[in-house]
């Protein structure tokens, strides 16, 4: 019998791992509806706005983000329809998706638990760094970079929430070995948060770009047609660690892929400016931290 290739073996481990997760949330119906509506070219902004406006809490969050310095519009936007007309369907969808994920994975945290505030700070910081890198590269879709950075580590929260004992073991290994969380996950679970996050996004039918970037943010060469996006998130994850903003569960810096670095075409002398630009993006993105409070 032919041997399974390493990718299949990891997929099988992830399948076994997630099979043990009981009661994993489905993507809220409202989000699924918005995804489907946006695919239809005849959908009007008013129709999507109507769906969002049925949820007052979500409406207020979307308006808070669109009126924040993250977008920096001079005039106040007061309706979701107006926000969609100005920012477009995809941007509004990204804001709704991030808000939904913050809500789905909300939990009361006790002292000693995995620190979710630090985790989300790392994630927001990674999104901000991705945007700063994207600007430098003239990447056309900065929004896509921010969301991919924001959500790249979601698998950690899935594990923390739905297999807390195993995840506590992972964190314990990180602590005792002072190693990267992905190394500890491989030791304890045989798969990483990147695999679990990608699996969740697949299940939720999210974009291929988001799925592959999440899966490959530690190894962007495997991301196929989404390689460039994955390379930016790979670098952003490392840059934000080097800036010591937030904490994704470990306190080490992984080695940057030389292939990714060469492919992005940046210079070593760009790092100083990248830090300054990322810092500015973080300040603009702080409105997202309100979502977790």
């Amino acid at each position, binding site marked *: 019998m032919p041997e399974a290739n390493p990718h299949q073996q990891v997929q099988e481990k992830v399948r076994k791992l997630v099979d043990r997760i009981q009661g994993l949330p489905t993507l809220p119906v409202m989000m699924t509806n918005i995804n489907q509506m946006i695919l239809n070219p005849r959908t009007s902004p008013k129709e999507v706005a109507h769906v969002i406006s049925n949820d007052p809490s979500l409406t207020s969050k979307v308006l808070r983000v669109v009126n924040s310095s993250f977008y920096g519009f001079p005039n106040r936007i007061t309706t979701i329809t107006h926000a969609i007309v100005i920012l477009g369907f995809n941007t509004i969808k990204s804001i709704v998706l991030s808000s939904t994920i913050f809500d789905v994975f909300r939990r009361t945290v006790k002292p000693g638990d995995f620190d979710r505030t630090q985790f989300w700070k790392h994630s927001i910081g990674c999104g901000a760094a991705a945007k700063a890198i994207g600007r430098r590269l003239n990447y056309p879709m900065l929004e896509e970079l921010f969301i991919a950075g924001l959500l790249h580590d979601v698998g950690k929260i899935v594990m923390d929430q739905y297999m807390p004992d195993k995840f506590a073991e992972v964190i314990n290994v990180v602590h005792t070995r002072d190693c990267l969380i992905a190394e500890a996950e491989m030791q304890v679970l045989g798969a990483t948060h990147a695999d679990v996050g990608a699996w969740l996004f697949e299940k939720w039918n999210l974009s291929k770009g988001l799925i592959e970037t999440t899966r490959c943010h530690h190894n962007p060469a495997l991301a196929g047609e989404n390689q460039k996006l994955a390379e930016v998130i790979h670098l952003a994850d490392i840059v934000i660690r080097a800036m010591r903003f937030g904490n994704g569960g470990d306190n080490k810096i992984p*080695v940057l892929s030389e292939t990714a670095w060469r492919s992005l075409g940046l210079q070593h002398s760009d790092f100083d400016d990248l830090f300054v630009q990322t810092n500015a993006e973080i300040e603009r993105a702080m409105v997202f931290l309100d979502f977790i409070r």
Partner: protein
Amino acid sequence: MKLVKTDEARPGQKAARDVTDLRGNLLFKAGTELTAELLETCKQRTISHLFIEDAGGDAPKTPVDLQAQREAVQKEIDRMFAGTESSATMAALKEASKRFLTSKLAK
């Protein structure tokens, strides 16, 4: 506020900043009065330095304080980057990280 070695901090002094472990978990908040148990916890979590409140309140940072903070930050960056030495890009990133973090201290 001043930076002291954990070994030299004494019960009764107050933490001037939130104290987190290497994983970023909050151990105790700024303003917490240090106890022998808290100091022991810090040592067990390999927290080598603590910011504590000066008796005289928020006095401006002295050059000695700043130098101690710079050294602590640089030591922490060296630890975080341990094992990446063979990469020239990582070496450049490490130096940029030190410049960025130490420049923030002075502000």
